[in-house]
């Protein structure tokens, strides 16, 4: 499993691995927002938590189809499925690798982009906390979507259609934590609910992803 994780990370770093693509997309989305809504600081400060969460979510979505599709195309997935690794472990490692290469950089970049959007000072800590807690769920849910659409020729659009509704609870609670944090309210309740969703998806969804992948491989 560690070998698989190391390989996935190495592949992401090498040329053509698409590492950093999500980060660049996040940056561009956030930079485009003030062009759309105008440069007023007060307005930007109000919508900043939501925009940052939405940008992170879309950046995450962008790289989902790479989680499994590349391994599917070159036959690695067949070989992994017949290897001693359990399928649940394979999808969990895939999700973890996706989080490390996409989610984690987004978490780290978010405060910098928060400055661009005039995020109020108390919001920074909560923004990072909510993203750090929420993005693993995005990766795990995204792996489920990738497993559903792995055999399809043009699964990218369908993947978004399937995954976005599943992202809704995470987005609602995550953005709520960041918003309350920015407005100086107590963000404890949504933070607990967000953590609950993340733990729940990490614990249960790999079984669904593995089942779906087995169906797609046969």
């Amino acid at each position: 499993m560690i070998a698989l994780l190391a390989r996935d990370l190495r592949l992401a770093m090498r040329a053509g691995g698409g590492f950093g693509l999500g980060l660049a997309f996040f940056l561009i989305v956030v930079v485009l927002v003030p062009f759309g809504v105008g440069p007023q600081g007060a307005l930007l400060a109000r919508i900043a938590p939501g925009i940052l969460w939405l940008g992170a979510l879309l950046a995450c979505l962008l790289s989902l189809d790479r989680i499994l599709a590349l391994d599917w195309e070159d036959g690695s997935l067949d070989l992994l499925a017949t290897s001693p690794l359990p399928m649940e472990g394979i999808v969990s490692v895939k999700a973890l690798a996706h989080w490390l290469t996409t989610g984690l950089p987004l978490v780290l970049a978010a405060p910098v982009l928060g400055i661009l959007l005039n995020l109020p000072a108390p919001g920074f800590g909560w923004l990072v906390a909510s993203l750090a807690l929420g993005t693993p769920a995005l990766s795990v849910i995204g792996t489920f979507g990738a497993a559903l659409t792995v055999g399809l020729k043009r699964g990218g659009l369908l993947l978004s259609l399937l995954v976005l509704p599943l992202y809704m609870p995470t987005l609602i609670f995550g953005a709520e934590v960041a918003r309350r944090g920015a407005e100086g309210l107590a963000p404890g309740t949504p933070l607990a609910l967000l953590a609950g969703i993340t733990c729940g998806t990490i614990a249960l969804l790999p079984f669904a992803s593995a089942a779906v992948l087995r169906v797609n491989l046969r």
Partner: protein
Amino acid sequence: MVLSVCDLSVARGGIPVLERVGLTLLPGEALVLRGPNGIGKTTMLRTVAGLQPPLAGRVEAAPESLVYAGHADGIKATLTVEENLRFWAQVFGTNDISLALAAFGLDPLAARPAGALSAGQKRRLGLARLLVTGRAIWLLDEPTVSLDADAVAMFAGVVRAHLAGGGAALIATHIDLRIPEARIFDLAPYRAAPLAADDFDGAFL
């Protein structure tokens, strides 16, 4: 007994293609599956490998003894030959990849990115993976595609050494591999008859 297949029926795309296939494979034996295109050689191998469930019958083998090699080699173009092999060695819990590199003449290519290999070299890398898995039963689907005559001989030598070491192989191929130990197993007699229309779910299959 290493591998035993009893009354196995397999389906491709929901349609039964082979039924009541029975075969046994003993240590040191190789079996070459023969049959026209579309008879279900690949489906059969994938079922034996556990990638798809059989319609009926069962496959018995010692746990963790099978390794499957399909049409695609599972090679990552941006990793070097050595990294590719080492990954599979780690997945299967073995360490030594030097034997595998030597057996398929990959030593001079070890540091080259796999994407820069020719089709035949890639295939050799894919086959070298079998050696690093340390598994006893090889399930090979058209292993010699895009190999030249020398490489085929190299492959035959590796298979013979594997058999001599107590291993076994189930190979779907059209060409003569020149492995004298290998028995031929013709799948044509096992072609599935269409299901009766009044079968319980037969209306669909």
